[in-house]
């Protein structure tokens, strides 16, 4: 019997963070997604830090979704310390998150994923032939980053979002000028959906369980129940009872699965599969127009799902901003001990933070579960299935297919190892 054949990708380019993978090409293919992004031990060193530092610190888990980590942590801390926030704060945080989800999706779509489909090593090589795409990207990104920065002070590692509320509320005239820019990219967003829909993706059916936050009244971002396509329907507080995190020997990231070992998929595609009906009518029409319908079990369609979410987020931001008169607010935080968790929809899917705070406001315990941990086992599951289905192809083709698959999940290894 000959040795089983391996494919080793030491380094996966164009993803956020550091990972490679190893594929054993056997009748029973085996996959190891090797996440060697060095651990920074956030859960370790958050112990001993004061409650007000946590948002600023965890924002540094990820340079692409800082708003999500920050907001999730702050909500968890507010829960632990029994802090009530105003309706305006809830609303602002929603806009804040949506703006970041859109910007993050855009980077993934254009700079990380798209070169695959055009056959380029990276976006730089795309500049000469595909300038309109990139100009569109920049226009959209600038507008959405502008909104994040308006609310947060800066788009990356914002500063105004703190336990209790926002330290600064933008002036109406500043909202107005950003609003103008966002309205100007509506057409771009629609075009982006059409462009992505036109890309040819592998035909692949993955039997996955999808998980997302769900709310009766809206397309949930920062609040809601945790719901799955396998019938799970729990409150955020119940999260620890239903999700299990475990360490694997070849990765610094942990794998998180449903109680009982079921791998899950979170993220844009999961969200659409669970709450497509909560999207705005316009978005649903556009989806129908480009031939997207739920349930959709092809992970490569995660890209299209992201594009639709960008379109939806832009419309929602416009509505939310226009529906509210923003005012300066005062808030005061009383230091109290307690425990609390919070779950939000980060760009890449369900994000969970949990803290135990002592009576001086100092963190005693922390637990953070990121979208990529949630997706980890599902990515491996999909890769195995793909390799099995494509065993006949040459190794290079298999490698490329696998890379594409991993990228379709838009994994974030910086988040996953934190």
């Amino acid at each position, binding site marked *: 019997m000959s040795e089983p054949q391996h494919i080793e990708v030491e380094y996966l380019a164009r993803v956020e963070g550091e990972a490679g993978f190893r594929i054993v090409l056997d009748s029973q293919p085996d996959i190891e997604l090797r996440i060697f992004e060095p651990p920074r031990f956030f859960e370790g060193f958050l112990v001993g830090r004061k409650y007000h530092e946590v948002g600023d610190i965890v924002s540094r888990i990820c340079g692409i979704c800082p708003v999500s980590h920050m907001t999730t942590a702050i909500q968890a801390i507010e829960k632990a310390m029994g802090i009530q926030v105003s309706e305006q704060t809830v609303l602002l945080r929603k806009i804040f998150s949506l703006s970041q989800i859109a910007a993050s999706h855009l980077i993934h779509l254009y700079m990380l994923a798209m070169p695959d489909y055009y056959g380029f090593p990276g976006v730089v090589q795309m500049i000469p032939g595909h300038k309109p795409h990139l100009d569109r990207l920049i226009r959209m990104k600038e507008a959405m980053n502008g909104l994040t920065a308006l609310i947060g002070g800066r788009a990356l*590692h914002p500063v105004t979002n703190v336990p209790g509320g926002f330290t600064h509320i933008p002036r109406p005239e500043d909202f107005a000028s950003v609003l103008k820019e966002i309205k100007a990219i509506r057409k771009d967003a629609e075009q982006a959906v059409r462009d992505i829909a036109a890309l040819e993706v592998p035909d692949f059916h993955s039997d996955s369980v999808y998980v997302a936050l769900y709310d009766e009244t809206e397309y949930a971002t920062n609040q809601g129940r945790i719901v799955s396509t396998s019938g799970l329907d729990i409150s955020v507080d119940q999260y620890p009872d239903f999700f299990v995190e475990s360490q694997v020997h070849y990765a610094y990231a942990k794998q998180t699965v449903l109680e009982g070992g079921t791998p899950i998929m979170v993220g844009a595609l999961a969200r659409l599969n669970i709450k497509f009906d909560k999207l705005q009518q316009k978005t649903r029409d556009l989806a129908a127009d480009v031939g997207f319908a739920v349930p959709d079990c092809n992970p490569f369609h995660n890209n299209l799902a992201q594009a639709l979410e960008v379109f939806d987020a832009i419309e929602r931001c416009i509505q939310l901003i226009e529906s509210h008169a923003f005012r300066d607010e005062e808030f005061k935080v009383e230091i109290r001990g307690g425990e609390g968790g919070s779950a939000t929809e980060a760009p890449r899917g369900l994000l969970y933070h949990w803290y135990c705070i002592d009576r001086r406001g100092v963190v005693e315990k922390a637990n953070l579960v990121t979208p990529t941990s949630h997706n980890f086992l599902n990515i491996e599951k999909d890769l195995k299935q793909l390799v099995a289905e494509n065993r006949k192809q040459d190794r290079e083709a298999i490698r490329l297919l696998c890379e594409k698959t991993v990228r379709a999940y838009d994994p974030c290894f910086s988040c996953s190892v934190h």
Partner: protein
Amino acid sequence: MGTGKRIGIFKYSSCAGCQFQLFYFQHYVLETIQAVDIVYCKMLQSGGEEDGPFDLALIEGAITEQWQADQLKRIRERSELLAPIGSCAVCGGVPAIKNTAHELDAQRRVYEDISVVHSLKAHPVDHYVRVDGYVRGCPPGVRDLAELVKSLLLNKTPRFLDYSVCVECKLEEAICVLVAYQEPCMGPVTNAGCGALCPSRGRACYGCWGPMKDANAKALADRFERMGLGREEIYRRFTEFGEPTVEWKPGQVKP
């Protein structure tokens, strides 16, 4: 393409935010990327020439594993210029908060089996190699990144700001939160560049740009103490973004 200036970008322990800021710093992006040759950057493109040589190597992230230190030394040998970008690489940043805890304790709080973990004390880049300049910030500001790229194109020594955040507060006329509202602001010992973001948005600077050269950390720590801040609180403020720095060491008196 471009000027033929060869740039290599390397990521160590970090959030990748500096690279995002670099590539996506708004409308300059396309012009920037085209003006230089990015010959190695894993987050931007597949392949690339990992071994250089580079006209400029940019290093993101703190050094927390031995392989990073080894690779860094190789890069230094193959680079005309080398600059850390962002607080993690410049002054340890957030990853260096772990230095405040007992290493194994911190590891055990995260992993059951720590035998597979090979983490070292977090250090900035200049702990291991000589550097030619610092692009500060968490994330670095557009001004400094633009200065870096333009200086490379013009063949000039980049001029990064070296004064305190207080200067920017005054240029922006942001009322001093330390003096006016008695908030423990790190601005006086923190390097400028953010445009006094926090003070002008109603909160005290938390030091994310890391220490200003010649900062008088002791005097500020004493001031905080006179304001009624406990030792522990002061310690935390001086270790959030500059644990391994000499400039802030005097403020890091263990409670």
